[in-house]
C-alpha cells in the first residue's frame, strides 16, 4: 500500500522539480504513461498541443509583424583541440522593417560593429578602427541574409527567424518533433518544443499567449565531433518600434575609411581585374 503512494509522490515531485505544467515529454509516440495510469487524476490539458501547430503559429505571427526590434544573446560552445569546452558570448540587437530594411548592432567591448541594409546596399561598419565596407545587396531581407552568409561569411544569429517564412528553414529533414511541455523562461510562460534532424537536435521556447514570440533557441550540432551547442536568448522584443528615417541607411562618420571585403563578390572582382 505504501509503495505505490511513495512512487506517485516521487513522480509528482519530479514534475514539480522540472516545473512543467503539462505532461512531461508528450512526444508523438505515446507518452510513457503506463507507469501511473490509475494513480493520478492529473490536471492534464484537454488537448495536447501539436508541436508543428505551435511552431506554425509563431511563424505566422512573426510574418505578420511589419517591424520589430529584438535583442539576441547567444552563447556558443567551442571545443578546443584539447577537447576543452569554452563558451563564447555574443550580443546583437536586430531591427527589421519589412520587406527590405535590416540593421544589426553587434555589441562588444571594443566598439562593436554595425550592419546596415537599406534595400539596395549593405554596409558593415566597425567604429574601431573606424572603417566600413559596402556592397550591393539583394532586394529582400531573405536574399540579403543568404548573400551575407554565402558570399561574405557574415552570419546573422537567429537568421532562421528573420526569414519571410521562418518555419521553412526550421523544419527541413525532421526526424522527430516533440511538444515537451510548458515552462517559465525568464518570467515568460512558454511552450517548449524539441526537434531532431539527422545532423542536429534543436529546441525552441515560444511564448504562450496572444504573442507567440520565440524566447529561446538551442541547437546541438551532431554533425560536429563532440556535438557543440549554442543557445540564443531573445529578449526586449519591441513590436512597434519607431525608427528614425535614416535608421537603416549608413552615413559614414567623419574620417571613416572605406575598405574592401577580402572575399569580394566574383562579379565585382572581374571588373577590377580587367586592366
Amino acid at each position, binding site marked *: 500500500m505504501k509503495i505505490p503512494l511513495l512512487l506517485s509522490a516521487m513522480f509528482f515531485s519530479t514534475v514539480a522539480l522540472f516545473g512543467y505544467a503539462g505532461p512531461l515529454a508528450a512526444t508523438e509516440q505515446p507518452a510513457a504513461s503506463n507507469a501511473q495510469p490509475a494513480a493520478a487524476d492529473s490536471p492534464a490539458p484537454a488537448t495536447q498541443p501539436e508541436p508543428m501547430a505551435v511552431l506554425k503559429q509563431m511563424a505566422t505571427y512573426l510574418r505578420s509583424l511589419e517591424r520589430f526590434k529584438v535583442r539576441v544573446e547567444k552563447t556558443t560552445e567551442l571545443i578546443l583541440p584539447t577537447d576543452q569546452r569554452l563558451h563564447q558570448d555574443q550580443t546583437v540587437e536586430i531591427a527589421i522593417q519589412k520587406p527590405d530594411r535590416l540593421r544589426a548592432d553587434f555589441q562588444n567591448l571594443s566598439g562593436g560593429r554595425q550592419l546596415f541594409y537599406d534595400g539596395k546596399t549593405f554596409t*558593415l561598419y566597425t567604429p574601431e578602427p573606424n572603417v566600413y565596407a559596402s556592397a550591393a545587396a539583394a532586394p529582400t531581407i531573405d536574399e540579403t541574409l543568404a548573400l551575407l552568409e554565402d558570399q561574405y561569411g557574415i552570419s546573422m544569429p537567429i537568421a532562421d527567424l528573420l526569414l519571410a517564412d521562418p518555419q521553412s528553414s526550421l523544419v527541413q529533414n525532421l526526424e522527430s518533433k516533440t511538444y515537451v511541455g510548458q515552462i517559465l523562461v525568464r518570467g515568460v510562460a512558454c511552450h517548449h518544443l524539441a526537434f531532431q534532424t539527422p545532423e542536429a537536435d534543436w529546441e525552441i521556447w515560444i511564448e504562450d499567449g496572444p504573442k507567440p514570440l520565440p524566447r529561446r533557441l538551442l541547437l546541438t550540432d551532431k554533425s560536429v565531433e563532440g556535438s557543440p551547442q549554442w543557445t540564443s536568448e531573445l529578449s526586449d522584443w519591441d513590436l512597434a518600434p519607431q525608427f528614425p528615417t535614416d535608421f537603416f541607411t549608413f552615413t559614414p562618420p567623419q574620417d571613416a575609411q572605406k575598405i574592401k571585403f577580402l572575399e569580394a563578390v566574383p562579379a565585382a572582382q572581374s571588373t577590377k581585374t580587367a586592366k
Partner: protein
Amino acid sequence: MHSSLSTYLKRAMTVALIVGPMLALVSADVDARGRGGGGHGGVRAPRANIGGGGHHMNANRNVNRNVNRDMNRNVNRNVNVNRNVNVDVDRRWGYGGVGVGAAVAVGTAVAVGAIVSTLPSNCTTIVADGVSYRNCGGTFYVPSYDGPNVVYEVVNPPSGWNQ
C-alpha cells in the same frame, strides 16, 4: 587586382605575426565561420543557424565554402607554429585567467600578401590614391573585412613612397 584564386593563395600564405592565446583563433572561427565544419583539426563550433544559414542557401554551396576556408587555415597552421592568426573583435583578452598571454608583435620581413588580424603598435595611417594604408615600421598594411572581422593585408608600399 585580386582574382579569387590569388585571394586564396594569399590566405594560404598567411603568416601570423602575433603570438597570442589560442582562444583568439577560436573566437574568430565562430564569428566569421561559425557555420559548422569542425573536424579539420581546429576548434569545433556548431553551425550558426538551425537551418544552416540563409533561406536560399543550398548545402553544396555551404560545403564548398567551408572546404576552401578550412584548407587555407590548415596551411596557416602549418606555416605558423604559433597558430594564432585571427583575433576576434568581440572579445577582450586577459580576463578571468583564461587567456594565455598578451599579444606580442614580431615584426620583421613580412611577406606581401600575408594577412594578420592585429597590427604592431608603431603604425601610422597614410592615405594614398584613396587607399588607406598603415605604415608600421616600413611594412605597409591595408585593412579589409574577412567575414565580419577587420584584418590587415601586407602590401607593397604605395607608389611614390620613398623608403
